[in-house]
């Protein structure tokens, strides 16, 4: 579908784009700007206090800065597109369910990075082929940091599961956090997603991205960490 769709090289070019293309872009840029900041506030910044060593505290500082930096980049693009500043921050918005997880421990933070950043990678991979070039470039720019964050989750969880107590704590955190993940990809047969695909803003359906996540997360959690994923309803 997307191969026949025109691409737009700059914000200026959007003046000649269909109105619903511009609206769809605004939704997706707004969503990324808000969610990057939400994640930094509820997970990454609090993780600095929870980290068990100065090495991990400073690494958590850096990760928080990078997530905040992603917000800044999406916000700047949104502002260039004429989205009001108030719509580009989380204030007054209902958070996604994954941000309602009451994170209280370092182990939980490691599991958040393991699961949520993998989900984020799948979303950003899809944007790397976006028909709007500034958004495509932004996805390519943020991807190396997203990969590092996800790898950080994998590495820290791999260390933690080496002890029985750590293994139990990681499994418990997965049991509580993982059920929130499938909904992150949006509803089945979503009208927004259909619009995104019509214009080549996104390439895949929500169901396809959710299925990709399930495949990769199963390999990570059950194949690599030798833990169990709880049963969840996959369709949102």
């Amino acid at each position, binding site marked *: 579908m997307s191969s026949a769709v025109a691409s737009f090289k700059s914000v200026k070019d959007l003046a000649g784009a269909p109105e619903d293309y511009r609206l769809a872009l605004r939704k997706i840029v707004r969503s990324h700007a808000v969610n990057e900041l939400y994640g930094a506030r509820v997970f990454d910044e609090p993780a600095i*206090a929870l980290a068990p*060593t100065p*090495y991990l505290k*400073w*690494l958590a*500082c*850096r*990760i928080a800065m990078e997530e905040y930096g992603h917000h800044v980049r999406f916000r700047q693009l949104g502002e260039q597109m004429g989205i009001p500043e108030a719509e580009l921050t989380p204030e007054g918005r209902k958070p996604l369910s994954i941000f309602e997880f009451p994170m209280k421990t370092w182990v939980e933070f490691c599991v958040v990075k393991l699961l949520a950043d993998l989900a984020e990678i799948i979303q950003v991979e899809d944007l790397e082929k976006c028909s709007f070039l500034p958004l495509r470039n932004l996805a390519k720019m943020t991807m190396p940091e997203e990969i590092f964050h996800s790898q950080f989750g994998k590495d820290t969880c791999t260390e933690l599961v080496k002890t029985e107590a750590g293994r139990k704590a990681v499994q418990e955190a997965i049991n509580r956090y993982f059920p929130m993940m499938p909904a992150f990809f949006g509803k089945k047969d979503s009208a927004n997603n259909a619009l995104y695909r019509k214009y080549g803003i996104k390439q895949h359906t929500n169901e396809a991205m959710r299925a990709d996540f399930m495949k990769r997360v199963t390999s990570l959690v059950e194949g690599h960490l030798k833990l169990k994923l709880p049963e969840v309803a996959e369709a949102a």
Partner: protein
Amino acid sequence: MSGRLADFAAGLASRPWFARCGLALDRSEIADARAWLAGLGLDAVPVERVASWRDAARLIQQPEWSREWWDAETAQAESLRHAATALLGEKACLEALTDVTEAAAALRDRAAASLARAGLDDESLAKVAGGAAAQACHQRGLAILAGVDESHAFAAKFRLYAAGRWPLGIVGSAGFVF
């Protein structure tokens, strides 16, 4: 005060970040390290040099690192935040500190360059050092906004970074500077 902070943020790129890591400590660096730890209200401890990136990475993962040191820095930062907010208002403080944070984002690259000069390619350690330096910039920024003088612990700590060092904190019974 926020104008002074803008100058501080603009000047961050010109500092020799991590350029003297591992070299022998000179007198002024030892004095700054002592002033940093004394300014936090901690008991005096000997100041020791760390010789390599690998030693620095090992040291800051030791279980006997001082929670008292970290908590003292956190408490000082909180106290400065209250003072700065009372002086300038929350929004002005946040905006000024955002400029510092954005300027400090480049410090990871400076750490990676120093690691590369030492023949090391360690993305995680570059981010750790970059995170530590950014935290020090934020702390120094709070001190500037709160209007405290150059004898403050965070001013002394920042002078160590500005001289190309990485202050690593207290581990066991000594304060360490890389």
